[in-house]
């Protein structure tokens, strides 16, 4: 197992290095530079600024300086936020994005699984149709439309919830719901079909014949068995939710990290682009690694097949 983790870790580092290097050289290919401004800076001042930021050095030298700093955890000063380091920007924004992501995950998992279970138990009846509606909405309407609609109805028209910002619990309700809707929809669909599969199995008949109460049948036999394949789709969803917050964060003016994806590239903020990429790259790689390892622990079949191979 240790050897397996070490191997995974090595690949993870190589992956991050490739991502960072590719980003570093690709962003240099965009015309212009971070010092660009609609109002031209006097050429002499621009020259001084380039020197100050080390942009006058040959590209490979800049690259090695950057890698060296990155290895010690320093991602440099942002160009756009002249008094803040990239580390500070990430430390400020990520907890908020992560909090939103976690809330959406929790709501999404609970609501999605419940809807799926209820739908399967009421196959072809009202609740089943309701959960199919939710699934269709969640899958087909993009997050920003939902977000804008929620904001208009609950924030402006009904005035039940604050329109935007991230201050109290009330502020978190709409963004959490908007972000989790896609997950709810997907999980509900998946759980429903998984449950329907299980319901038809012979061991359910056996359980009934044994005289177990309906609750016990649902809880111990149906849900437990149906949920395993569902868990496997959660891995990619964590990534989607943590990285997919750009739109929701913008619509609800949440001070998270999402907006920097787009903004840093528009502003050509070199250090912020590479910093954000390295950070999210690492998160994704680590998530995948954890999911791989978790599979190994949860599912004995995978563990055994890995050993034998």
């Amino acid at each position, binding site marked *: 197992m240790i050897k397996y983790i070490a191997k995974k870790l090595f690949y993870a580092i190589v992956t991050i290095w490739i991502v960072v290097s590719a980003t570093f050289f690709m962003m240099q290919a965009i015309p212009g530079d971070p010092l660009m401004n609609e109002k031209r800076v006097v050429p002499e001042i621009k020259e001084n600024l380039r020197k100050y930021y080390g942009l006058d050095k040959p590209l490979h030298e800049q690259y090695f300086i950057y890698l060296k700093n990155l290895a010690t955890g320093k991602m440099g000063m942002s160009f756009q936020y002249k008094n803040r380091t990239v580390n500070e920007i990430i430390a400020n924004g990520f907890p908020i994005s992560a909090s939103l992501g976690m809330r959406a995950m929790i709501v999404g998992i609970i609501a999605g699984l419940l809807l799926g279970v209820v739908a399967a138990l009421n196959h072809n009846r009202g609740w089943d149709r309701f959960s199919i509606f939710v699934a269709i909405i969640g899958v087909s309407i993009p997050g920003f439309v939902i977000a804008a609609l929620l904001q208009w109805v*609950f924030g402006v028209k009904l005035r039940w919830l604050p329109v935007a910002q991230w201050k109290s619990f009330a502020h978190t309700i709409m963004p959490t719901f908007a972000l989790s809707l896609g997950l709810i929809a997907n999980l509900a669909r998946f759980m429903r079909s998984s449950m329907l599969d299980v319901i038809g199995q012979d061991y359910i008949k056996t359980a009934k014949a044994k005289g177990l109460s309906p609750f016990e049948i649902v809880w111990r036999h149906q849900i437990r068995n149906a949920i395993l394949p569902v868990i496997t789709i959660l891995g990619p969803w964590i990534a989607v939710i943590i990285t997919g917050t750009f739109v929701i964060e913008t619509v609800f003016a949440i001070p998270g990290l999402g907006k920097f994806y787009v903004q840093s590239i528009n502003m050509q903020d070199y250090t912020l682009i590479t910093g954000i990429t390295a950070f999210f790259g690492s998160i994704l790689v680590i998530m995948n690694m954890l999911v791989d390892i978790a599979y190994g622990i949860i599912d004995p079949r995978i563990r055994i097949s890995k050993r034998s191979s």
Partner: protein
Amino acid sequence: MEMKYLMFYLDRWKTNSKKNKGGNVVSKKRLLSIVAVMLAFAMILTACSPGQPAASDQTEGAEQTVGTVQDEQVLRLSLFQEPGTLDWQRSDSNIEIYILSWIMEGLTRYKHGEIIPGLAEKWDISEDGKTYTFHLRDAKWTDGQPVTAEDFKYGWLRALNPEDPMSYAYFLYDIVGAKEYNTGEGAAEDVAIKVIDDKTLEVTLKNPVAYFDYLVSFSTYYPTRKDIVEKYGNKFNAEAQNFVTCGPFKVETWEHEAEMTFVKNPDYWNASEIKLEKIIGPFISDNQTEFNMYEAEELDMTIALNADQKAAMTKGEVKNFNDGSVWFFDFNVNHPVLKNVNIRRALTYGVDRESFIKNVSKRPWIPALSYVQPDIIPDVNTDKTFREVGGDYFKDNDVETAKKLLEQGMKELGLTQLPKLKFMCNDTAEGQLYAQAFQEMWKKNLGIEVELEPVPSAVRIDRQQNHDFDISYAGWGPDYPDPMTDLDLYTSWSGNNDPGYNNPEYDDLIVRAQNETDRVKRFELLHQAEAMLMRDLPIGPLYFRYTDYAEREYVKNVYRKGVGVEIDVVYAYIEGKNK
């Protein structure tokens, strides 16, 4: 398993709502009803399912309308986005500059678009117009220290320090020795800023700069405390608690990326004129979110308003202001075809600005038949603006003249057919839509085919600077309310001369205006310069841009103008909010 999560989550609700007692406390019961209604709402969306149990909850929820302050002097407006820096010598963007104008003050300051004495009580100008002696008033920093002439000298030299370059350092280049020091060819000691005593500052300029009293109101010229800069280093003005300022308001809180708040500075020398007690400025970058917050009474005004929002608005009133920008075609005058002035004239005269504004942009803009902006730039000789004195230089949609000029231009070039010209524009939806409108007009009115070249804005700026274009869709905004801010762009040595216009006569007019101490003569020269520019048309003016915005009726005295301080809230107050 799910139940455990649910309980955990309910616990979080409890602690969270306790924490936020002052804000929007949401009871568990109401929360559940909200969740239920959200689900119901999802169904209503598809309009497939009949009556929902939401109706009974609605009356309960409606009472929760956010309670606002009772006649308090609090103004809430969006600050659009986190400022890149509030280090005033380093800052170079609009939003930074207007936030800084609330918390700081220069020797002079803008009040409703006019310049008034700020930290300088009065100033003397020498006969030749080159030496300014500023007499400072008794003013205090927020830590109780007096504002001294030394603070100004330190701040100005800091802006010029070549070791720690600041992009707006060139704002000080009119001072003797400033450019030399900033470009490494001179020393700090040779910059002609002299501290006579604690309260007297003397500055010597290279030329008599008629608008120097405007320049010294600008953030690059703010006084700066050496001890504070040295104490905080790179964190100078980076956090709320680091600020030591001397303006009408002080920074109270700064939650990065989320919100800034400001409170009145009781020690400001003119505090009795400041009525607002607090400014709350969340960073709302999404225009629709800002509008929704305004409609939900979470904001008292908006930064801007688009046509749809204008139609949907239910509160307050729509106002508009000249955002200061003039938009035009940049013609590359070194292009084999566009070097001909008659072709440039044909392209400029042959488009219908009126119709473009009415049918395409649908904004409160006005056609530009000249170059220097209306409204914001006074003509010192009269009580009129520079624009009113100068008037228009050509007619809008003058297709007849344009056709003749095109024919004449082609004859001069010896062409029977124009080669296809390229028209560079921004690749945004709006940028392409606008450019297409003019492309269509050229084709219909003059039979000229141009090819659109949509590029990202950074690429457009880069290529304009390198004169790598045929025609480009460009704009310019003024730095100070004097025509020089527009006209010196087209001198042969200007870094912003994108068309590559090079006319010694024009250069001469600008230099003479720069050295002219007689204000009447100076403005005559500036009008001549504009006339020459409108004769040669290295740029083809299109429109002057105005911006709509919404403001509640109880907000008084907020002043907006596209030059100096774009949002001037310093003298604002709230009246009649709780009628």
